[in-house]
């Protein structure tokens, strides 16, 4: 219990980020029209691809003779990039269709 409290104190800034982000996420999503649910889910999907940063850090710290770490880290970078790039491109493609329609109407 004490260690938990200590941990909280040491990472107070992080705890604040967590709490505020939770409320922020709720705020942002609760006002979205259902038309945009799929693109939004896809966009959020791309954003959690931020995990790639962890993969880069891991990869960049692995000692060059530890092949296990190198290979796992390499895989992590690849799949993380897949998440980021694929996520954003798919979202853009979905939204692109909305745009073309609007142009023709105008």
């Amino acid at each position, binding site marked *: 219990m004490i260690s938990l409290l200590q941990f909280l104190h040491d990472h107070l800034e992080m705890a604040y980020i967590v709490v505020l982000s939770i409320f922020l996420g709720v705020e942002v999503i609760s006002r979205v029209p259902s038309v945009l649910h799929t693109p939004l889910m896809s966009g959020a999907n791309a954003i959690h691809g931020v995990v790639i940063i962890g993969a880069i850090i891991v990869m960049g710290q692995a000692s060059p003779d530890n092949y296990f770490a190198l290979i796992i880290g390499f895989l992590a970078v690849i*799949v993380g990039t897949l998440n980021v790039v694929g996520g954003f*491109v798919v979202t853009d493609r979905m939204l692109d269709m909305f745009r073309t329609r609007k142009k023709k109407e105008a």
Partner: protein
Amino acid sequence: MAVAVLSLCYLIGSITFIVGLKMLSHPRTARRGNLVAAAGMGIAIIGTIFLYRTDDGLPLHNYGWIFSGLIIGGIIGTVLARKVKMTAMPEMVSLFNGMGGLCAALISVNEFDHLLHVDPLLFVIGALVSGNNLILHVFIILAGLIIGSISFAGSMIALGKLAGKIGVWRFQGQQVVNIAVLLITLLLAIGLLTTNTFFNGWIFGLIMLMALLYGVLFVMPIGGADMPVVISVLNSCTGIAAACGGFLYDNQVMLTGGILVGSAGAILTVLMCKAMNRSLKNVLLGSFGGVQSDHAAQAQQSYKEITVSDAAVVLAYAKKVMIVPGYGLAVAQAQHTCHELEKLLEERGVEVKYAIHPVAGRMPGHMNVLLAEADVSYEKLLEMEQANSEFETTDAVLVLGANDVVNPAAKEDPGSPIYGMPVLEVEKAGTIIVNKRSMKPGYAGIENMLFYRPKTAMLFGDAKQVLQQLIQAIKEL
């Protein structure tokens, strides 16, 4: 200096994620919002590569590995996302989500491997100096591993289900097995945290294996119709797994991004469940379409078929036609043909509108995206409440590959698994023409009484072919 600039990069990244999500929730700014978030992600990634300093103040190395990973992942991701058909969009979201989960799990594997390689003596001293923070460090590693693995395995099964490659798999006592697997996973994790003899790679690997197994078991009993909800849950999970990485590296951008997606995904899940009027527990326990209340269906088995030319007459001489699209439309890639039919009918003076159920298709908004691709005008798409108030003045309803969202059992049969779910009340209209490939029950596996009603006529066949035949028939009238 480098670290300060990196902090700025992370701050910019975090802001773009928030602003991007905000913009994504408005139709006008959505596209820019996506680009804003992507740009922020780019800044955060490039900043990390060049400006990150380890605890010893050293820059990162292994650039060759990092860049080849980024290039390979980037190329595969772009190609997949560009080439995929619009109908397979939900599959793609599921796939990329799974990749994020896998990434989080692999990071945990690497971090744990790193811990095992540290000199044991240093390890003990470190633990003493930092109090019990080591346990918390390992705890976060384990959390990332377990959540990431569940998200990965679950997403892959969801992907298979969306593609129709994996069916529903149920057995007696499945819930007990699922809970047992999850419990074993957690117990092993606690064991590893608290017992010295458990602190090794084998137990760690076993935990990962069990978490993967749980991910599979978790999604297996859930019907394909509920996959949007499942993907939303897993999306949220991956966000939390990413946030674990944020704790691990004291990295604010990972934390903001991860938690933001975690909470947004959770709310989106709740919204989706609300649209179906079911509790999340109900969805996740997979009670959908288990044992069906098909006793009523067996009582009156007769349904009416209609020929294409008759259907053409009904549609062409109606004043107002409402089209109810469903997954069948997406599978048949019939959105363009559907738009053609709409234009043809409009030329003849028929008022045509689309009734969009919030969970029609495989994802919320799936139908909107699909019809937008075919240039169907935005004003023609009616949301459920609006459509339900207009069915009374509608002469003919054309149901294209939708099933559960028009099932009257949701209103009438308290024994039905979908009882209470808001549906499109197509029965208020004059005539209902239902296009389906066969009489087989829909994705949820529930018999639809609508098909046996006197006002309903069945038009069997692939949605695209049927629509083409209809267009031909109407032109010849």
